[in-house]
């Protein structure tokens, strides 16, 4: 991510220290992770210490300090999905990709995250791949979905 774009985002939020989280969110949304150079630029422009930025970037779930895989898999672990067997879906995905929630595989193909409720409880258990929702998942169907991703 280039410095000009980071500056544009900071300017959009009027360069105020209180906008720190909003600036980080915008960068995360565009770049899918927060590179060190971006954080350094923000520290300089917003005049906030790097320790505070690190605190925020590790405190909130939305931020990642490492690059993400090409395909983002979200497994809903909300209560409704849980009682309908979400952990079995998670097991299947972990077996298939070889990664645990919060991790990205070495080929940068998959990133796996668990989320707490996607708001489509009628379809539980729910698996979301790159923003597309797959509902009423069983381990067998989960395997079918994953095999189709290239």
């Amino acid at each position, binding site marked *: 991510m280039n410095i000009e774009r980071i500056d544009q985002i900071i300017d959009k939020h009027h360069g105020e220290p209180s906008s720190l989280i909003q600036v980080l969110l915008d960068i995360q949304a565009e770049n899918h992770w927060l590179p060190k150079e971006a954080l350094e630029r923000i520290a300089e422009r917003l005049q906030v210490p790097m320790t505070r930025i690190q605190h925020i970037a590790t405190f909130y779930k939305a931020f990642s300090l490492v690059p993400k895989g090409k395909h983002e898999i979200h497994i809903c672990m909300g209560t409704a999905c849980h009682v309908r067997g979400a952990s079995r879906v998670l097991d299947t995905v972990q077996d298939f990709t070889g990664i645990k929630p919060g991790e990205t595989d070495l080929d940068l193909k998959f990133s796996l995250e668990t989320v707490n409720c996607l708001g489509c409880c009628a*379809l539980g258990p729910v698996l979301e791949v790159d923003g597309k929702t797959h509902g009423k998942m069983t381990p067998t169907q989960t395997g079918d979905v994953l095999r189709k991703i290239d």
Partner: protein
Amino acid sequence: MARINSPEELEQFRQTLLSQRDPNKPLISICAGAGCLASGANEVIAAFKAEIEKQGLKAEVDAKGTGCPGFCERGPLLVIYPEEICYLQVKPEDVPEIVSQTIKEKKIVERLLYVDPATGEKANRESDIPFYKNQERNLIGVNIKIDPKSIDDYLAIGGYSALSKALFQMSPEQVLGEVKKSNLRGRGGGGFPAGRKWEGSRNAPEPIKYVIVNADEGDPGAFMDRALLEGNPHSILEGLIIGAYAIGAQEGYIYVRQEYPLAVININLAIKQAEEYGFLGKNILGSNFNCKVLVHQGAGAFVCGESTALMTALEGRAGEPRPKYIRSNIVGLWGRPSVLNNVETWANVPLIINKGADWFTQYGTESSKGTKIFSLVGKITNTGLVEVPMGIPLKDIIYKIGGGIPGGKKFKAVQTGGPSGGCIPESLLNLEVGFDELTKAGSMMGSGGMIVMDEETCMVDVARYFLNFLTDESCGKCVPCREGIRQMLKILTNITQGKGREGDIELLEALSETAIEAALCALGKSAPNPFLSTLKYFREEYEAHIKEKRCPALSCKELIAYVIDPEKCQACMICQRKCPAQAIDGGKNRIHIVEQEKCTKCGTCFEVCPPRFGAVRKISGEPVPPPISEEARTIVRESKKK
């Protein structure tokens, strides 16, 4: 669009809007809420637009995506006005038929109607469906009528008339008085009376004050605030501006979680439109009252739903709570008086101002007034959002509205109040729903998640699930929460894995007591609730796990085994083929056996075994029967005997 500068201009504009709208012109309202979108509503909307164009009906019929009316189970769903015909589970393939039959010929497409499973009767209209019939939908009922991206749609149903009334016919004290009289209690969890909170801020000496919408809906399995924010953002905005007027604030914040991208888009758009129309900004409706509203996106932290943590996050810092020796309505955001209410609470305000406190208090019990939206999910036939008057028996929500438990299973418990709440057993199903009633039963109202559990749900695992969630979400500031919950989780995990020991229950109770006494905020104080309430009503399940290493619900993976009944197995090879772990030994005409050491207990065999055989079963607390001899495994088919 020109600014609206007075109540008269507002009414005039509304009349113009209504006169341009022909109530008899067919209108297809398609739910574009999260649930319906996930089941393909966008494709249905696109198909309607294309089909209307194709049949040359653009001038004669309107189609639009709307907010969520609640019946997620049967999405994508739509309502056709003026007849109010309701079609469920609509697919793009159904669209040409709906347009040519219902829109052009005024005939009903029977197969898309709701069919009552008990009587077999079909329901043409939304209001005839039992799921809706037993509700009181003051808030969520209008969702299907409006396009959330259109302020004109909101104005057409009377929007911003409450703001106009508050600003021109009422003093701030009168507005406050009305809200106090309505006894509106906070819909986000605690149930604190909104009027008293407002009054505290109003009376605080500090001249600059804030109003805040808490839209950081974090309870897993709860999505009613999302439906309101996505479906009817102006109602929340209107409530917020009225609140600002009542307490003397000129600035408001909406803290909305970034996990709800559509809500973020819709509320931002609503603010922009309200500014253009003069409902926000300087000199609102010509009243000399100024108010501006900003949106702040949450970055994903459950604890930010707590009022002081949320305000810290608004200041651009890590959202950790602080001790509340002084309440945040006196010293809140930036150290100033701040009224923070939940989305649903704010959405109630315009209704109370327009219809009066007496109208509001006709619903509910002695101490809980009005209606409440619940998200009814889990092992329930009709998953969705339901809005009911306070005081309705739990039984009615689950059976009359929810349609009971699917698959002929037995009801076990309903969990309310999110991770801070508790489980209510069958013996208490006559309980009337209300803030104090639920607390008395060991649970709480919370934000309104209602998760139904059946006989296959293990209650120890439910407690473990919530503790796991809370361990993850604990901000780490205070020791009882950071360390105590972690230890509780460890013990509960051990119990579900068959490593429970005598004395574990007592140890969990001791840890609970400490967390309740000493944790800093509500997250930690209420974290033991899921454990305490399940222990209270389902102690025997804990004991079975600890003493007999048995999971009565046959759910805990480490305590169960899948076995194939040799008497029932027909060697059809379905489970053998589907098993992802190749753990089934079998073959043509050879009775199958689960190789226990290979089995990952994913349950696939159990699911795929044809019900007419029902040969795969789960066992717990008993040894796996030894495999039958190789000779006995061969099946000789009757037809081959000759």
